[in-house]
């Protein structure tokens, strides 16, 4: 059976989805499945956070059935890292479903955390409230995120990916409104 996407390679992965009550399945080769997963087109399957952290999703396992030691995916220095504050190790992280040991662990395991955050969260920067008495909610982060989204939007337009661009455009508009409101509220307080 050939891959439905590229129609070149042998399909090794079958994905079943239900649309309007009708089951549909698509057959993909390893290459296309990996690509689609990276682009987030495989929907939100239930995942184990530890697997996401270590980039060892079920799919990865299916793609590399002969990989005996999955740890190869993790950069050596991160796999060996131990948090200087709480002594948590990468192994502890794996055993506890991706839970960190202390706030400092976010620095210790930064490469792992960043990878996981990029995959499971909608953005990379906190735009919400701050601790009580900690200044205006997220104004600094909002500006950072606006800049990032603007860059992403320009890229998408260049690549003629207009659907994705429209999503970014709407988020930029919403964010701008919120930033204005936050700045107005801040002025009022002063």
């Amino acid at each position, binding site marked *: 059976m050939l891959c439905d996407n590229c129609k070149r390679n042998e399909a090794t992965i079958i994905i079943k*989805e*239900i*649309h*309007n*009550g009708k089951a549909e399945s698509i057959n993909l080769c390893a290459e296309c499945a990996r690509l689609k997963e990276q682009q987030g087109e495989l*929907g*939100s399957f239930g995942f184990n*956070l530890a697997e996401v*952290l270590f980039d060892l999703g079920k799919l990865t396992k299916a793609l590399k059935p002969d990989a005996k030691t999955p740890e190869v995916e993790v950069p050596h220095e991160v796999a060996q890292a131990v948090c200087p*504050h*709480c002594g*948590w190790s990468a192994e*502890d992280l794996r055993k*506890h*479903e*991706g*839970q*960190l*040991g*202390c*706030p400092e662990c*976010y620095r210790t395991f930064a490469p792992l*955390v960043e990878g*996981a*955050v990029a995959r*499971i*969260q*909608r*953005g*990379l*920067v*906190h*735009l*919400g*409230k*701050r*601790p*009580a*008495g*900690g200044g205006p*909610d*997220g104004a*600094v*982060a909002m500006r*950072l*995120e606006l800049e990032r989204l603007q860059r992403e939007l320009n890229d998408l337009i260049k690549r003629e990916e207009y659907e994705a661009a429209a999503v970014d455009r709407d988020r930029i508009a*919403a964010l701008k409104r*919120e930033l204005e409101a936050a700045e107005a509220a801040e002025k009022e307080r002063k």
Partner: protein
Amino acid sequence: MTARVEELFRNPSGILGEGNTGDDIAISSRIRLARNPAQRMFPVRESEAGRREFCEEVAAAAPEFGVLGGSEALVFDTEQMEKLDREVLLERYLASREFISHPQGTLLLVRPDELCSLMVNEGDALRIQSLRPGFQLDEAWKEASALDDELGHAFEYAFDEKLGFLTASPTDVGTGMRASVMLHLPGLVLTGQIASAVAAVNKLNIAVRGLFGEGSDNLGNMYQVSNQSTLGESEKQIIDRLGAVVSQFMERELNTRKVLMERDQHSMLDVIGRSYGVLRHSHRLSSEEALKCLSGVRLGVDMRLFKSLDIARVNRMFLAIAPAHLQKRAGRELDSADRDVCRAAFCREQLNPDAV
């Protein structure tokens, strides 16, 4: 000294009241916030002694937390409680399964109306919860945020300029907020639309879970819709996005019910009538069957088919038929077979025309 769960039985829980939308498809709304003090390790890494120490700090500061009712707050020393009493907390949505399964070094603070509570040393050191009947995410958020401010004055939070509130799991980092609405969707289930609706919503980083049972074997047609992403959007954006999805679910459910009544009235009335009949007349009632039938009766109440049965009574029954509540009511431990008998007796009594 721990509060006793019996204190919760004095007044009906605040979320059992009627919703605010008039159609009762949205049963309740919840906001949960995860917070951790900057100077401590996360509960998973903290020693039992360390966790207890933090519980004592929270208990000592409790009278300052006005949002939790100040000195009126019920303080449950979960570790000292009987297993059955902890199950009661779970069934009343005051504690998570995870929390009651690992009670060592934990504490639970509950406002007497049960709409606001605080779990200490669940996955994160502090888990704030605000509940509301119906579809009221904004109100729940306002209250959770107010308690968050009070706690933020008492404890310096672990907070990062870029990543926001630091949580034990990166799945909660940022806002640390999980917003959810519980929906009753018998129309979508009856017509087989639920799977496609859930699949469509999952693509928007919104999770839909059956409340009882797993996956398609969902009992009682109850679904919890919640945000999956906690970073990259403000709390308001998350709540608005979730709210839009919830509104769509409610609209689709209402339309489906209308269409069902127009095209296949007898099947619809049959489901409701049989549900009522089973609850009214059976002498052995399993949890599964009771949930299924209560869903049918609830649908009938929504459609104004009963003269005097109201949604508040149905809501109370949903809670009262849960295993731990049945046993507290009976005043003794019951095995599964005894529970089925007690459950049936309770439902008969509740639906007795003289009682309704």
